[in-house]
């Protein structure tokens, strides 16, 4: 028993295994492009980069903390009511985040409106709590939460960047496409602002991701 503890204590904070927890969700097991979870918010809030950035940060905070809390409680949660416990934890965290957003970035919070609240129903969060945090120690759970949220956030930001650049000609609200283009006859693409284009953009990302990484292609 004591020996076992020693070896565990010796395991470095950023061992190869722990690093993978952080890096895998960004690449090979990305929650959006590979597991296709949490797509709803990608469709809804990616019209502008700023809003998606705020949402991505919010999700990172909720997932990191949520995983830590559930991991801490993992021995005390009766299995039969674990979902409701997870929900309570996530809901409290989301309310906190919502209050912070309203206090500091009110306009963005108005823009995100219901989607901050809907973080609760984000399948990725519940999925990681259920699949990882319930059975793992605090530190790996934390890394796993941050990693998955980062994987989610990175796709969110990519989609938002594409949509804002081509749909509004700007990034983070600053105009990127020079005026000379517009004088020459360039017009912003109105379809980019509509939700279907978010779906198509995500689809193209999945396509690119799979054609680069052949092991992701599942033939069924």
């Amino acid at each position: 028993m004591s020996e076992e503890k020693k070896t565990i204590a010796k395991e470095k904070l950023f061992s190869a295994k722990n690093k993978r927890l952080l890096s895998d969700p960004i690449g090979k097991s990305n929650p959006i492009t590979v597991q296709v979870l949490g797509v709803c918010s990608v469709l809804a809030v990616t019209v502008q980069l700023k809003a998606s950035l705020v949402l991505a940060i919010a999700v990172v905070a909720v997932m990191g903390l949520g995983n830590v809390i559930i991991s801490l409680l993992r021995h005390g949660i009766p299995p039969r009511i674990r979902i409701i416990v997870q929900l309570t934890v996530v809901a409290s965290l989301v309310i906190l985040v919502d209050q912070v957003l309203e206090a500091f970035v009110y306009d963005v919070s108005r823009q995100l409106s219901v989607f901050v609240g809907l973080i609760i129903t984000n399948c990725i969060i519940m999925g990681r709590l259920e699949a990882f945090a319930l059975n793992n120690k605090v530190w790996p759970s934390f890394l796993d939460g941050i990693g998955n949220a980062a994987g989610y956030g990175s796709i969110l930001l990519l989609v938002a960047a594409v949509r804002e650049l081509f749909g509004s000609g700007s990034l983070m609200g600053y105009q990127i496409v020079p005026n000379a283009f517009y004088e020459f006859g360039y017009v912003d693409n109105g379809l980019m602002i509509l939700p279907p284009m978010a779906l198509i953009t995500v689809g193209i990302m999945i396509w690119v991701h799979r054609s680069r990484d052949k092991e992701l292609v599942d033939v069924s």
Partner: protein
Amino acid sequence: MKALINLVEKVKPNFEKGGRFEKFYRTFEAFETFLYVKGDVTHNGSHIRDAMDMKRTMIHVIIALIPPLLFGIWNVGFQHYKALGLEVQFLDQVLFGAIKVIPIIVVSYAVGLGIEFAFANARNHEVNEGFLVSAMLIPLVLPVTTPLWMVAVATAFAVVIGKEVFGGTGMNILNPALLARAFLFFAYPSYLSGEIWIDTTLQEGQQLIDGFSGATSLAIMAAGEGTMPSDFDLFFGFIPGSIGETSTLAILLGAFVLIATGIGSLRIMTSVFIGGFAMGLLLNIFAVNDFMAMPAYRHLIMGGFAFGAVYMATDPVSASQTGTGKYIYGFLIGVLTVLIRVLNPAYPEGMMLAILFMNVFAPLIDHYVVQANIRKRLTRMKKVRLQTQA
């Protein structure tokens, strides 16, 4: 002829395995089959290879598209000079139209085929000829004032998202040409609706005539103001509109070619017209405004109805495959088109959306038709079995 074959045979080794341009074999193959059908024979069983391969089929559709194209080119010039109030020679009208229309066609072909060739080389499959038709359809369903770069973007979108994503020609669920138009319609609405149907670029000293209106007949009916063109003009196509859609007569000529060669489905064409006419009659009964009270037959010669029915709805890939399914599919396209036109103020023309919508439903229609047939046969078999037992 012999010299041409010799030339092809001479350059061929360069593109075959181990040759210098091995990577571009598919590009070479595409051009080779343009000239000659390859000397392939079947290996197993007694399958007969028809000389009527996809490339030849597509050429027939192109031939069927020539009447509306030629008429469209002339009409572009005609409308332009009419808007300026100038009397000019027939040839000047054609020349003006050609200068405006041909670049659109060139862009559409260059972009589309470029992507098509790139994908064929990358995936190592034959270059699909389906795009030969799509690239001709795209310019015909656009207004002549569409900027060329928009044509390029829309074509690229249609080829990549409409076709290559699903695996190329024959796999697409939507009509690529209509997808290109829908893309432009939603992406750049100000360029595809309103009074953009006539090219009104003015040279020095020119001006538009007083009281000029570039509104299409559909816009006039939807707004309830303006003077409608006569039925004569509507049928022959002396009206503003997308390049190829205006002349019902030219389209009927094309339809004749399609039906005679057995490429276009007569069932779909007729049922689209019947569907539109029936819905028009139905709206007449409940008419509360001028548009609803409009004679039903006029729907068939206004806007893109005929063009959609003949060239778009009959696309063999995205339409229903079963016989009965084709009737249902076509009929619903006609019904929806008139419904959208008359009852939805946001979209003056409903043909594009109706066809795309029914494209999505075509497999479902087929499924139920097939299931119904299976059930029918099962009950018949049971009956026979009962009789024989008794």
